[in-house]
């Protein structure tokens, strides 16, 4: 993105959106192939992706341009795509192919990278992890596949001409990370406060273009995706153990210190 004649050209922003099972409902794995049973609970937009959408909309409000949603997922993912469009995104690409079922994080990143090659973009924004798998590696792997800089765990994003700068929270301050566009940015929930969809945008959402893409359309090599070719394997799973009784701190003068130590040991403070 270069500055041409004063006014910078509008930005093409792509937001990666994943539909995940609602964390408020009981989630199940499918015993047949150890993959997530996506049909057994309501699908919602991965929470951190809402922050990514909001950040993209804020960038668009500031710099102009277009926000495109890219989502890889089965048919039900259209609900989450519609919600993202109702928040204000302009259009969407839905990558949907049976061959992708059971893909692990690396394969998903590869597939998303291929899908991204079908569109123009200056910046890709995504949530730093999803509430279902919680691997948190898709952003990094995607940047590798695309050969682009990655700016991870951003709690602030600024774009100035062709330069993108983020802040990343650390234990005792923050890092400033800078790169040239195009780039991949992953965001954390401190970055903003996602807006509610507005009814006008909900009404307009069905008129916004959603491009359907299958594996062939994205030139995805079927040998590189899907459960059979996954680089990782879910060997077994077990139900979460019932919640154990908590620790009771009896205050005999040192209660406050004990609680502070406990919180520090869990990295809450």
């Amino acid at each position, binding site marked *: 993105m270069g500055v041409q004649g004063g006014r910078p050209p509008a930005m093409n922003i792509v937001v990666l959106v994943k539909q995940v099972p609602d964390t408020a409902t009981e989630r199940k794995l499918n015993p047949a192939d150890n993959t997530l049973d996506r049909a057994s609970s309501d699908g919602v937009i991965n929470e951190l992706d809402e922050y990514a959408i909001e950040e993209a909309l804020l960038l668009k409000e500031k710099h102009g341009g277009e926000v495109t949603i890219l989502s890889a997922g089965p048919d039900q993912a259209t*609900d989450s795509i*519609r*919600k993202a469009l*109702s928040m204000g995104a302009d259009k969407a690409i839905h990558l949907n192919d049976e061959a992708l079922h059971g893909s692990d994080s690396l394969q998903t990143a590869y597939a998303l990278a291929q899908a991204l090659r079908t569109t123009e973009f200056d910046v890709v924004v995504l949530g730093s992890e999803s509430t279902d798998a919680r691997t948190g590696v898709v952003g990094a792997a995607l940047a590798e596949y695309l050969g682009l800089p990655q700016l991870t765990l951003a709690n602030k994003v600024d774009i100035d001409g062709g330069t993108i700068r983020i802040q990343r929270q650390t234990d005792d301050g923050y890092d400033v990370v800078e790169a040239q566009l195009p780039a991949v940015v992953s965001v954390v929930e401190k970055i903003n406060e996602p*807006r*509610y*969809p*507005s*009814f*006008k945008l*909900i*009404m307009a*959402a*069905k008129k916004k273009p959603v491009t359907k893409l299958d594996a062939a359309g994205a030139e995805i090599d079927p040998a590189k995706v899907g459960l059979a070719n996954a680089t990782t394997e879910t060997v077994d799973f077990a139900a979460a153990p019932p919640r154990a009784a908590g620790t009771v701190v009896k205050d005999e003068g040192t209660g406050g210190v004990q609680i502070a130590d406990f919180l520090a040991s869990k990295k809450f403070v």
Partner: protein
Amino acid sequence: MGDQHKPAAPDARDFLAVDTSLDAEEGSIRDTVRDFATRELLPHVADWFEAGTIPDPRGLAKAFGDLGVFGMHLEGYGCAGTSAVAYGLACRELEAVDSGLRSFVSVQGSLAMTAIHRYGSEEQKREWLPRMAAGEAIGCFGLTEPDSGSDPGSMRTRARRDGSDWILDGTKMWITNGSVADVAVVWATTEEGIRGFLVPAGTPGFSANVIHRKLSLRASITSELVLDGVRLPESARLPGAAGLGAPLSCLNEARYGIVWGVAGAARACYEAALEYAGTRVQFGRPIAAFQLTQRKIADMVVDVNSAALTALQIGRLKDAGACHHTQVSYGKFANVAAAQRVAGAARSIHGANGITLEYPVLRHLLNLETVATYEGTEEVHALSLGQAVTGIPAFR
């Protein structure tokens, strides 16, 4: 049919799966309002109710406006243009939190904005509707008077001509948002019959006083409007409104929202009671295990689901352009009474806890006293239904 095809057991919170016929937009609007109401309104509503007011009505109006809920089923002028069912769903989800919050939306969208949208001049529409839809301007609707409630035709507020101007004198009572409104839609008798006027706040001779010491609809602002020689230009009159039918048609719109809203209040009370009955232990068992409690719960499930179905059916008729006003009367009559039964039973299940603001049940029960009264009392709707099916009017 094998076991795999056995239908799933119904969801206790939506026993008849009433919402399965919603389309994608209606579903999105329901989810959005539910999410907004749960996160932004529910945490505060008990405090507002206790304080007997909405502390920041402008902030609330702006948030509602950003969502797009004001006049959402109207077309143009910044309104979202949704289906009537979508509007109903929004009312249902808001009133699941509190009737006062739904009233805010009803008065703005269905009463004040509908009056302007239906009966206003092009200039009046352009001046007020976009700002009202955005929540930047608040409207109220003044029909009721101290001596004229169920019989609004007996109103005493008068508008008389003075040259090309109008002079308004009278008092309006029980006006929701009256003292925070930027514009009051005021109905008055003239020599030609009942007419509507737009009275901007600050017009000389116009004042509004908050009504205190309410025991119902406390999370809502209710006011008296005083018109003392208020001079208005002819351009302040709603040109399309001639006769009592005009305000009554607006009331019919707001009443439609109530049909849905109280289904939400009923659902909230039922859910609270179900939760409480399952966890409160007496005589060594959860109180839900006693047959008398189960009878209450069974009655509640029926009332909650009947109310939801009634609302949806009336909504579908309305979207098809086939809803008669007596069908809306049916909905108000049936659903308010159902909600009152549910709230009463839910309150009893909560025991002493049920009389506090820690639980929603008495708050809803008290609110429903207002909801049963405004937009036509229970008796008035019984008479309306009676006339509709017997053909004999019994109002006077």
